[in-house]
Structures are given as C-alpha cells and as structure tokens.
C-alpha cells in the first residue's frame, strides 16, 4: 500500500513536470476544491488552467456573474446584459430561435449590432482544447488575440469574458467600469473573498470565476448516453438513424460530429462543409490560420441538444433540423475549399430518402439532454433579483 502511494505521488510529479512553461499553481486560501465528475467515455484531458482550478466558491461566484446583467457595467433595466442573456439554459446555453428578445435566435448587443455569427452553445467546453468560437480563434496558439485584453495571454474560456464585455455586438462596455460596478456590490466582495482569498474585485478574478462555472456545464444524460450505459433501448427508428449517422454508405455524420466513440458529438475541428462557393467572411478559420485550405471552414458544432439550439450553421441560415438534413442530403455546394471528408459532394449529398431522414432525425432527438437544460445547479441563482437574467422560457 505504501509503495503504491509512493508510485502515485511520483506519477503525479512526472505529469506535472512535463510542461515547464505552465504557470505555478497558486493555492486559494480556504476555497474548497471542486471535484469535476467525468462521465464514462468522456475525455479525461480537461481544459482547466493550472492557475484557475475549480473551487466550489469560484463556481458559485462565476454562476452569479454569468447571470448578473450588471456585467455590462450598467444598471439601467434596458442596459443589463450578461452571459445568460444570449446563452440560455433551456436552449442548451445557446440563444434559441424562439427567444423573445432575439427574434430568429440572432443575438445583438446593447447597441443593436448583431453578432457576426450565430451563438455557439456553452456545453462540454471543459473537454475542448482546440479553440473556442466558430473559427477557434480563442486558443493558446493564437498570438494575435487582442492584446488590449488584460488576459490576452491566457487565450482560453477566460478570454471570452473580456470579449463579451467589450465587443460592440455584445455588451460594448468597459472592463474597468464593470469591475468598479461589481466591486461596489457588498455581496460580491464577500464572494470574491471566499473564492480568491481577498475581497478585491478584479477583471482577472471575474473572468476566472465565470470560466470555472462554464467548465462545469457538462451534458451527459441524454437518451443516447443512457443507451451507451445500457439504461435505454433505442427504438428501431432511432437505431436505424444511429446506423445512418455512423456509416459512410449512410449519412456519414460521424467523421466530423463523433458518435459512439466520441460522445461529445463534435471533433472540435474545422471543416468547410460545402455550404457555399463564395467566400469572404473575415472570421472563418482561414482568418486564424492563413491556410487556404481553411477558407470557409468553421468548427463542427456539437449536436447535443440540437433541437434546442436553432438556428443552424455559423450564420443561422437554417431554422430547423429538417432543413439541415435536407442540406446534407441534396444541397451541398462544390468549391475548391470543401473539406475532403465531404466525399458525396458530387452527388449533392448523402441522398437520404424521406424515411431515412426521419430515422436520422429520431436518432438526433436522442441527443437532447433535458436533465442538463433543467439542472438547478446551472440555473439563475437569484431568480427574484431584478438585475439577474432569467431564462425567458
């Protein structure tokens, strides 16, 4: 027993010594370490920076900030905006096509400027180390991430907080103003003290706390998950749809969107999926890599909760899953930049028959995770507080 303890200690030491450039872990006095539970089959490589370990108090603080409309740095009811304004739990932490504030699910900022791309859902992000946003620009390898970002060096979920506060199509605020406003609220000073050891409110701490909360947003309890765990039996139609999903002779979705071997239902990689033959989006993958093969390429989004996260594609061009299935069946558009995995391009798509489309749709429905979208641990912690953004549904 003693020996095995020794071995474990050495193993941990070796693991931690592998990355000499990693920041030194700063212990947080009195904060309670949070044990993230990794569902069976999910990645064990977690995107948790060493200098931002998950703590119960940090997540609790982050959850408050995520929902607090004063994150915009303003208090007028018309100017409240937080992460939760566009990332709605009941819509898989996407916006939702039926969002009363954003018709058609197209979000816009406090100034009315629409976001350049549709909303990506905040789900299972802790399992992704391959960049965030549609083009993956938030990534440790990106040297060009806005250097006026106080945490530009981090290039992780933490950076998304800064982007949300300052971007003209989001809160169009000022980080210092937000920090000042949040710091003036007594409740937060106590929460910062609990999470970070002192009541000082800083942007770095705010972004760390929100990132901690986002890293807990794990969806792993859909019918499909239960099927893999042996707790649910697929109907014949769902099973047929699953087969179509993971076979080349079928719809061949799995190469980009995962499946039984990748329950995230995304590879988190980037593909030109044959939606267009004219390109010019300054925010495609090519804008990040400069590699011509990435022209018109975007991240394959997760298909978890797909029926709650419309509209679809980076520009929200499709309103229903049926439209997306039709696109992949018959409407692929050839261009020199189409990804080589789109091998049915010259047929226009997978040529699914109506019944096959129905099977595929029924399978996709098994990816809905209601427990995730109603999990009380992820909801607005102060639903009666006028400043906090309630789920509009």
């Amino acid at each position, binding site marked *: 027993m003693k020996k095995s303890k020794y071995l474990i200690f050495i193993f941990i030491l070796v693991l931690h010594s592998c990355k000499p450039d990693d920041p030194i872990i700063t212990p947080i006095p009195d904060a309670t370490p949070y044990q993230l539970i990794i569902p069976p*089959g*999910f*990645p*064990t*490589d977690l995107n948790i920076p060493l200098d931002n370990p998950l703590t119960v108090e940090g997540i609790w603080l982050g959850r408050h900030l995520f929902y607090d409309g004063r994150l915009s740095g303003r208090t007028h009811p018309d100017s409240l905006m937080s992460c939760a304004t566009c990332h709605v739990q009941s819509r898989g932490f996407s916006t939702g096509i039926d969002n009363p504030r954003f018709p058609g699910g197209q979000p816009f900022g406090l100034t009315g400027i629409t976001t350049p791309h549709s909303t990506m859902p905040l789900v299972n992000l802790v399992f992704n180390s*391959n960049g965030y946003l549609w083009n993956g620009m938030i990534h440790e390898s990106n040297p060009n991430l806005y250097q006026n970002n106080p945490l530009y060096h981090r290039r992780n979920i933490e950076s998304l907080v800064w982007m949300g506060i300052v971007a003209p199509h989001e809160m169009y605020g000022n980080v210092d103003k937000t920090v000042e406003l949040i710091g003036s609220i007594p409740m937060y000073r106590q929460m910062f003290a609990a999470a970070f050891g002192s009541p000082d409110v800083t942007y770095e701490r705010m972004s760390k706390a929100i990132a901690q909360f986002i890293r807990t947003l794990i969806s792993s309890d859909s019918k499909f998950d239960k099927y893999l765990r042996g707790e649910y039996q697929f109907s014949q139609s769902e099973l047929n749809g699953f*087969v179509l999903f*993971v*076979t*080349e*002779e079928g719809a*061949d979705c*799995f*190469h980009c969107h*995962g*499946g*039984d*071997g*990748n329950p995230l239902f995304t*590879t*988190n*990689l980037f593909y030109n999926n044959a939606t267009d033959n004219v390109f010019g989006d300054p925010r495609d993958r090519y804008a990040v890599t400069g590699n*011509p*093969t990435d022209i018109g390429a975007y991240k394959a989004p997760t298909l978890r909760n797909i029926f709650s996260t419309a509209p679809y594609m980076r520009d929200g061009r499709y309103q229903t899953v049926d439209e997306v299935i039709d696109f992949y069946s018959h409407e692929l558009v*050839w261009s*020199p930049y*189409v*990804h*080589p*995995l*789109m*091998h*049915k*391009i*010259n047929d226009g798509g997978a040529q699914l028959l109506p019944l096959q489309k129905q099977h595929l749709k029924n399978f996709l429905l098994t990816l809905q995770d209601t427990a995730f979208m109603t999990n009380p641990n992820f909801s607005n912690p102060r639903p009666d507080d006028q400043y906090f953004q309630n789920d509009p549904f």
Partner: protein
Amino acid sequence: MNYIKRFFSLQKIPILLALMSLFFVSCKKPEPVDDTKYGKIKFEFLHYWGDEPLLYDSLMYQNAAGNELMINEIQYFVSDVTLQSEFGSKMIKDWVDIYYVDKDIPSTLIWNVYDRIPVGNYHKLSFIFGIPAAKNIPYMYVNPPERDMFWPIFLGGQNGGYHYLKLNGKWREMPENQITPFDFHLGVGQIYSGGVIDVDSITGYVQNYFTVNLPGLNLSIEEDKTTVIQIIMDVKEWFENPIMFDLEVWGGYIMQTQDAMHVATQNGSTVFSVKSIYTPQ
C-alpha cells in the same frame, strides 16, 4: 592431455588453419545484445510520393491508374513495433503498444520511445500497420486525436474499434472532370450477405491489419545514445504495388467495401521503408 596433443598434431594443423580462415572470411560473427547496457531510439515519420517528400493540398500527383490527385490529411496507427537481432527480438512497449501518427500534428511525427533498448546490432524492424484485433478495443481512447479515429461499432464489432488509416485527399473524377474528395480509410472490413451493404446483412468481420517487415536494417544501439530511425510512408505505393488502386473504380469512400480495403492492405507491405538511421552527436 593426450587428446589435445592428438588434436594439435602436425597432421591436423592445415585443417585447423583452414577452418579458422573460413571463420574469419565468411562473416563477422554478430555481437550478442547486451542486456546490461542500454541506448534509446527515436522514430521520425516522413511522408513521400515516390522519391520526394510529399507536398500537400495541390493537385500535382498521378497514380498508376492515372488518377490525378492531391493529399490533404494522413492519420494512422502503427503497433507492436519490434526490433530483431540475431539473438531474439525486442518489442517496443513504450507506455502502450500503439502509436498514432498525424501529419498535421508535428509532435506525433517524432516518437521518442520510452523503452531502453539493449545495446547491440539489430537487422530487422517490423510493425503492425493498424491495430491487431486483440488490442483494437472500442472506446479505449477517450481523448483526441486518437479518439477521432474511432471505427463505428456497427462496422468493426468488438475488435475493430479504430481506423488504421485515414488518408484524405481529392482527385479529378472523370468523365465529369470534377475535383472530388476521397477518403482512403482502412480498418476492419465487413462481410455482407447477398452483397447488400446494410449493417443488418453483416455476417462477419475481416481484420485488415498487416505486418510490415523492414529487413536489411543496420541498426546499432550504443550505450546511453539515442539512435534515430527515419521511416518513410510512400503514399504512391498505396495505389499501385502490387495491385493498381483506381479511384474511378473504388470511388471516394471504402469503409464498407472490403474488396477495396483488401487491395489497399496488399499494397501496404511496400509502403514503408527506412530512409536512414543515425546517431546524433
């Protein structure tokens, strides 16, 4: 004593001399592997088209069938890498027996083998291309990039968890003259009853992994030194030797076409070679 005297009697000396000279002239006796001294090895994986390093993303190659093509992505597994000496073999275990190579992930192109290799001379390198059945367990990889090589359970059964190879590119498809993607993917094949390609018609699976032998190796492991072995995958060979692989015949995807995968595996034995072996000073 009498025996020795007799043996070295004058009459026997010419025979003895002849035997001794035969021994020295015939061949140098291989030195035994020394299990008390160790060196290290490092593999470098290179990708070529014929004699030249492969250039990607440009329609600049023509295979034996006349298909004009480009290569975009190469991802594969090698496993059970074994060094053979006159005195036995040494399988490289590393942490696991399976190694993943991805042309787009530079760190995978250099494999610093964890194992210590006994000092000595090795004359043959062999490995399995892909993953042998007993080790190809579905869902064993949960992290990328290996995870994204998964081979659907319907197509591989309980011993076909992962692609052996993804070789993705595009070719000029005729007669339309259209640039068309191809996904040259290898893994466990399926036998379909009645020729109907439907998972409900699968009556069995075919393990398509194969052994690559690279004899004529002149590998000398020296104590406390790292020897580099450069392995070349000649992509051209997948399409022509000994059987011509015509994209016009087999099309752009072959995961459910065992005949096509069989051709590929036949060609696979000549795909790899050793470019050079050296010990950096």
